[in-house]
């Protein structure tokens, strides 16, 4: 009734090709952004900011990266954790060598290092597909993680092998390091995520995105249509790793604030992000956000939310129960909608369009 595009005429090609062709969607995205920029920082406590929202945004970014590769181009990767690590270590090296340059610049630039590494490990994708490619990217995961432990230059010969994040400022306000407040870190991260999501949305809706999807749907047909497979696949690896790298740098600098980095980028991280993409919805940007919310927020919300509403769960029992609950919910959602939460969202929108009529 309210969500209906009747009467909204498209009179030009740009308006027909717009990402949000319906006025209600544009209002909706405006509301979400307003909530993210104004409402959440106003009401959320420091704990929610630093332990729920910041991890959610970091993982959303990483999930977008993997979604570009797996969802849009159809190449399975198990190396996302390691590519995130490349971003984190690159950012660390850059900011220790050039401490004068603003850290936000280095967070973005570190994505290019990760993109470069991604291209190298993407080369086999021309020859191998599916599970075999997943195994090849697994090699990237193990090799890079080995580098993070064994090349002391990467962590400046630190005795504990840790990345140390000192205070870095923007306009005199600390944005990174122990003195940066969660609000400031959240805003910096939110700006990065919004900007990169906007860019990703433009890429996947444009020529490049279409060529990725053509490769995903049938690579021989795509080749016959004149799409260069190697270039397209490597570009997907590069863009995907770029996003993962930026997410990794954000993770270390805006969320963790340093620490034992080699451990944070292990195979479990790669799997987590793959699960986010699968549960959120392959080939959907909004699905990346849903997936990240589901996998990263849910355990924290259950762990600290249930005691807050009076259900006394604590310690190990809670941990086990949360594992069971999250696992159960994953199975539930995959049974209800095998195409992920994004598809559920789409169905919901479709239903809303029909409402109050049943069809």
């Amino acid at each position: 009734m309210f969500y209906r595009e009747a009467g909204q005429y498209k009179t030009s090609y740009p308006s027909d090709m717009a990402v949000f062709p319906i006025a209600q969607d544009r209002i909706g995205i405006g509301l979400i952004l307003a909530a993210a920029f104004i409402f959440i920082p106003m009401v959320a406590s420091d704990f929610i900011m630093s332990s729920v929202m910041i991890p959610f945004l970091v993982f959303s970014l990483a999930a977008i990266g993997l979604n570009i590769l797996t969802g849009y181009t159809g190449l399975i990767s198990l190396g996302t954790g390691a590519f995130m690590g490349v971003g984190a270590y690159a950012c660390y090296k850059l900011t220790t060598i050039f401490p004068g340059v603003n850290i936000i610049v280095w967070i973005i630039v570190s994505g290019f290092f990760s993109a470069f590494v991604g291209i190298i490990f993407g080369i086999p994708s021309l020859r191998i597909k599916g599970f075999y490619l997943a195994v090849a990217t697994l090699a990237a995961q193990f090799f890079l993680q080995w580098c993070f432990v064994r090349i002391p230059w990467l962590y400046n010969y630190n005795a504990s092998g840790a990345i140390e994040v000192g205070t870095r400022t923007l306009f005199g306000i600390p944005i990174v390091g122990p003195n940066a407040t969660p609000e400031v870190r959240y805003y910096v991260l939110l700006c990065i995520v919004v900007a990169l999501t906007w860019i990703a949305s433009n890429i996947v809706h444009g020529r490049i995105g279409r060529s990725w999807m053509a490769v995903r749907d049938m690579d021989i047909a795509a080749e016959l249509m004149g799409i260069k497979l190697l270039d397209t696949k490597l570009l997907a690896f590069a863009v995907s790793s770029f996003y993962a790298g930026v997410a990794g740098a954000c993770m270390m600098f805006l969320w963790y604030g340093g620490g034992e980095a080699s451990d944070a980028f292990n195979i479990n991280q790669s799997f987590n992000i793959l699960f986010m993409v699968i549960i959120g919805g392959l080939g959907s940007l909004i699905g990346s956000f849903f997936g990240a919310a589901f996998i990263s927020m849910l355990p924290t919300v259950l762990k600290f939310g249930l005691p807050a509403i009076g259900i006394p769960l604590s310690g190990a029992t809670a941990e086990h129960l949360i594992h069971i609950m999250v696992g159960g919910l994953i199975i539930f959602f995959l049974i209800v909608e095998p195409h992920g939460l994004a598809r559920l969202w789409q169905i919901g929108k479709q239903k809303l369009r029909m409402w109050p009529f049943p069809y």
Partner: protein
Amino acid sequence: MKFRHFALGAAAAVLAGATTLTAVPVQAQDTIYVPLLTYRTGPFANSGIPIADGMHDYLRMLNERDGGIGGARIVVEECETGYDTKKGIECYESTKGKGPVVYNPYSTGITLQMIPKATADKIPVLSMAYGLSASAKGNIFPWIFNPPATYWDGASVFIRHVAEQSGGLDKLKGKKIGLIHLDAPFGKEPIALLEALGKKYGFELKLYPVAASDMQNQGSVWLNIRRDRPDWIYNQGWGAMNPTAVKEAAKNNFPMERLVGVWWAGGDDDARAGGDAAKGYKSLNFHAAGTNFPVIQDIQKHVVDKGLSKAPKEKVGENLYNRGVYNSMLIAEAVRTAQKITGKKAINSEDMRKGLEALDITPARLKEMGMDGFAAPVKLSCDDHNGHNKVYVAQWDGTKWVKGSEWMDPMKDDVMPLIDTAAADYAKSNNWPARSEACQKGS
């Protein structure tokens, strides 16, 4: 239909349980909030559970027996970390608003994360014999404490033990000493010191890294050990790595009394895994195992026998359980010292820092606490947040840990320069703020 009945029943049961358990105990006016970051789940749970039980039970015992510390009840809250850094920070962020007096991160990774955060938030961190060795420098790390000894102290005691067994430090020349370690920052910690000592005393250091994913699969590592035939092996391992190392040593006929673990490689289950062949396995220690101390008997009487503990009765007094007790004893003593300094009952985190800096556990005090022979005296100061206290070598006799050597001082002359450099490096690379907290008189 049946399923529905079951679901309804289950929901009702959960609700009923929830309502009975939510009856919040009335809190006394003076309380001291101590969050315990523990891990009863995850890959290291076998080491984490006894420590968590020991820490919890000692503080609980003080509440039951003495009504708290100095009249203030202790409010203990466990937060499960699973040894996972991400969950560790979550625990920190979720509890720091409740006025904690001290944090025990119980993971090197979480400690490293917490050092800058807790310093900014002005909450002391007690990383008991783990974490960042350099944080022993109180003038650089006013909020971080790591008594009673650093990993470097531990490794030096190991070398001292080797020298003692071989007939003097000069006999170390030409010996081959292996270090089997977890290939992570924690495991690599002793390398710097062992290399320095190797240069000084002329022994050869062989490294055997074990990746965290291969903790239970050390076959190839031990193949290398068989080839190199080191005279002694120092084991810097944790969790599932330790029982595997002991088993592999037994399988490869490595003389068990020449395999010495760091204090974290001294769990009862670690040694028990090797069966009879594990007899003779050694591990460093800074407190005694067993129940033969008044303090442990008090815990049994006031906590375990009343069913207030999660620990199974037979596990009370095991080595890692007692380590938890020792850790909580340090917390409690620091609280008591802080109360004495400030004259307050309910101290805050800043008072706690003063208490930790003035911590002085004398032999008389140990006796008073029922810990005579349980631990060595500990004395911290404004400058020295570690104490570099005495450590001994414990030995597995097949069923329990017994004393395998006298209490030995670490080689402070070799350890201190490393700590000074590491602390200076840390301060430099982090633009670390200079200490602004004044020292207490007499500490």
